[in-house]
């Protein structure tokens, strides 16, 4: 599955890559051991491809990046948050399909 449009966010690059980004940013909080996160991966990848230039899409591994995970009080994954101008404008907790993700993103474009 092509994932060249997916960025990798970390505790280190989050503020620059997400909060200061020009476009809205969709962040997928995930972990290796999370089955539903893996199940949602194709939908996230497809979405990233469809919204190139309009919304940037990236993943944040909760195991490796505890500080951002704590900051946004993420206590369940998959959690997808949409940031615009440095603020969370929407979020979805749990496994959803691409249509649901698209609908969320479209509400904020």
């Amino acid at each position, binding site marked *: 599955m092509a994932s060249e449009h997916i960025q990798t966010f970390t505790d280190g690059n989050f503020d620059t890559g997400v909060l200061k980004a020009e476009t809205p940013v969709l962040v997928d909080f995930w972990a290796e051991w999370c089955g539903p996160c893996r199940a949602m991966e194709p939908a996230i990848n497809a979405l990233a491809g469809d919204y190139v230039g309009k919304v940037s899409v990236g993943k944040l591994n909760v195991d490796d990046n505890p500080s951002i995970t704590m900051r946004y009080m*993420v*206590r369940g994954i998959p959690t997808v948050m949409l940031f615009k101008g440095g603020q969370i404008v929407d979020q979805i*907790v749990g496994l959803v*399909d691409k*249509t649901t993700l698209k609908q969320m993103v479209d509400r904020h474009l």
Partner: protein
Amino acid sequence: MSHSVIVIGSGPAGLTAALYAARANLKPLMIEGLEAGGQLMMTTAVENFPGFPEGIMGPDLMAAMRDQAQRFGAEMRRGNVTAVDLTRRPFTVTTEDKTHEGRTVIIATGASAKLLGLASERALMGHGVSTCATCDGFFFRGKPIAVVGGGDSAMEEAIFLTRFASHVTVIHRRDTLRASKIMQDKAFAHPKISFEWNTEVEEIRDPGEGVLSSLTLRNHVTGATKQLGVEGLFVAIGHVPNTTLFKGQLEMDGNGFLITRDGTRTNVAGVFACGDVQDHVYRQAITAAGSGCMAALDAQRYLEHEAAPEVRLEKSPEVR
């Protein structure tokens, strides 16, 4: 092109149906669904599936079933079914990107976790409230948490969560557990697990803060309420069948379970149902797999009768 068999759902029921249909050379098409692999994808060790004396991890069992069905030619499609039309032939099954036609449909859409139904539960989902211990237990390392429910799933979650949590309180609305004896014994013996009997969760706090800090519990025998300081609440109070797609087309009971007769037949000839979507009694991986096998055999027989009209079971619509 019309498929002989379309299987909707990819848990033990769907995959067994696909395996049998594939081996009958019916070239089944399977739409795996959003929660591909079903409920077992969210479990850890499965210790009661025959053939695995040491137990097997739920996701590994599902991967093996999937491989087995594929080996005999079942075609798997990722994605979710968004609509079905079971009122005309061939039946149609629509996904996000395509409409498929099938001469028979096997429904194995399973069941999803049931929620308590509190507004605060919804608000704190992912911020302390969870329905998946294996997904979210990690976030509660060293923290006190609660599990609500009294069945096998609740006990499994409680025991699993002791790996992370400092303490697990099981909240159950009755004074005895519904869980199997072996699971009860494990839970009772565990030093990190305690129980609140005859108790319901009245409120989850604090949605205003965006994070779970405590629960208001009510003992419905004494009427007393109290606060329980926990950071996580895992809801394991049972499942609701995934039958929204079929409302108005297939017969269901009051709780939304599909009604099957004479094996796996629904009220629409050529449409069969198996696994948890039609079973609120047994709900085991092995019974789901067994009924998946039945559904494939029923579909195969239906197609044979359809091909040989002289032994036809159902009357065709009146021809003018």
